[in-house]
């Protein structure tokens, strides 16, 4: 994870096209300016960044399923729960499963596991639209390659 760059995932470890699901790994950094404020003397991964982590897993799942042809934008979160503190240095496993493929949108159930325990979950709605420009598409494809699954997806 590079929190300041909103780079929340480190690697896609499993992509299952048949079950429309993805598993990614993410290690919370030991140090970050984020922890200076959240919270002094008691550093915690902000829940909103855990939500973003799940949204990115959902986004890359949809990109993979659509062959990186459309851009998923995070539109809505329902029933978001943060069930345990996540501290610097934690190793996270992020799960995302598409439960509905609508026209121009998709609904994804996501959750995060840390030390065998579910620490966050949410139902996410992603709006799927044509890429607004080539630069974003290239960036997303580069990120797909960095995460180690673009080849498999295509």
């Amino acid at each position, binding site marked *: 994870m590079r929190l300041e760059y909103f780079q929340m995932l480190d690697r896609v470890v499993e992509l299952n096209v048949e079950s429309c699901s993805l598993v990614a790994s993410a290690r919370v950094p030991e140090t970050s300016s984020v922890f200076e404020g959240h919270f002094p003397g008691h550093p915690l991964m902000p829940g909103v960044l855990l939500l973003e982590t799940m949204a990115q897993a959902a986004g890359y799942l949809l990109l993979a399923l659509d062959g990186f042809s459309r851009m998923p934008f995070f*539109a*809505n979160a329902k029933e978001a729960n943060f069930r345990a503190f996540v501290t610097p240095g934690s190793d996270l496993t992020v799960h995302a499963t598409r439960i*509905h*493929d*609508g*026209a*121009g*949108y998709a*609904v994804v159930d996501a959750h995060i596991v840390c030390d065998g325990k579910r620490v966050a979950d949410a139902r996410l*709605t992603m*709006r799927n639209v044509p890429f607004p420009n080539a630069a974003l598409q290239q960036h997303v494809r580069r990120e797909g390659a960095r995460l180690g699954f673009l080849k498999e997806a295509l």
Partner: protein
Amino acid sequence: MASTFDTVARIISSTSDVPIEKITPDSHVMKDLEVDSLAFLDVTFQIDQTFGIRLPVEEWLQNVKGGYDGDRYFVLRNLCRHIDDVAGAAAPT
């Protein structure tokens, strides 16, 4: 068995906090019921799930952008007719 209109009215009311008595077959989902585009995604998801269909809302929105009259899709009686058409086409024969 509830009519398509009754079912859709219940979905809109529960997902968008619109009083059910305000919803009529002549209501325009956006203009009259003030369901915004994000809330309409919720409505569409519930309709898709309830009727086991994939409502072609993306195509409809493109058509409206292209100059089509939105009433043909987003006035309740028309929306329900589209749902019945899509559900009928999707039903096993």
